[in-house]
């Protein structure tokens, strides 16, 4: 990929009606910074599109802040998308920890867990279901946002900045070598 090391912060209205125009701005910027490489590298393009979509949707759905900030950092070997908005810390999954983790959601083959490193630092991980755990359609979740990001990102973490009262979600995508 022909990468230009860059950093850019987008500030979008936290309003669901502007989701696609906001997403298009992010995609255009990433494409500009990587030349034609996103067309040549469909997998990276798909991951960026999916992660940015879900980070924005997450904010429109759950945050009551007026704006949502999306920061894109690109360098030679990775692309980082960070979303932050103001508000109280996010609680993932149901109350109660099991070995430091909580189940958040699942698809028909795997489960998404939030690993609580401490109260304000969480990483997300996926575990494959065993055959006897597979949910039937009736019990299938209808919430896929964090699952999509976790599956698309090489690393996906949440941090609550208590000093500034900010929720920060950071997704990292490893870029293929030249």
């Amino acid at each position, binding site marked *: 990929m022909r990468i230009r090391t860059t950093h850019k912060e987008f500030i979008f209205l936290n309003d669901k009606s502007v989701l696609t125009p906001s997403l298009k701005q992010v995609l255009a910027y990433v494409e500009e910074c990587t030349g034609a490489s996103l067309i040549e590298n469909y997998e990276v393009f798909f991951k960026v599109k999916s992660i940015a979509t879900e980070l924005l949707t997450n904010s429109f759905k759950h945050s009551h802040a007026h704006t949502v900030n999306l920061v894109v950092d690109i360098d030679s070997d990775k692309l980082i998308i960070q979303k932050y908005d103001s508000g109280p810390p996010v609680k993932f999954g149901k109350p109660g920890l099991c070995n430091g983790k909580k189940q958040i959601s699942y698809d*028909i083959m795997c489960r998404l867990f939030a690993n609580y490193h401490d109260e304000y630092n969480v990483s997300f991980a996926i575990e494959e279901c065993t055959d006897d755990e597979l949910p039937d*359609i009736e019990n299938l*979740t209808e919430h896929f946002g964090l699952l999509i990001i976790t599956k698309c990102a090489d690393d996906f973490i949440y941090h609550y900045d208590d000093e500034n009262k900010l929720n920060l979600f950071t997704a990292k995508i490893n870029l293929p070598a030249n």
Partner: protein
Amino acid sequence: MISIETDTEGYIALKTTINEANLNNSEKFKAELIAILDQYHKKTILDMSSIGYMDSSFLGALVSSLKHAIAIKTDILLTGLRPDIHNLFTLIRLDKVFKIYKNLNEATAG
């Protein structure tokens, strides 16, 4: 948001008329689709080729509609998924939940 293309004895063929399928219209879409399921009560084939952008809210609306279809003993088949949308289904294994076909001919043959 949904147009009715064909109504036959065996199935009803629908087509989405939106390009952006997301939180902004997912609830309205679900209500429209469930109303059609309840009214026609037969196998429903949904052409989604108009959709270029889709988020998890819309996927949730589709899953919710499929649960409703199964509860009233019918089904929703999907056709015309663009590559990005098909890959999204594959990513979270919804390709194992929905019957997905290239087009109406394949769906009706299957």
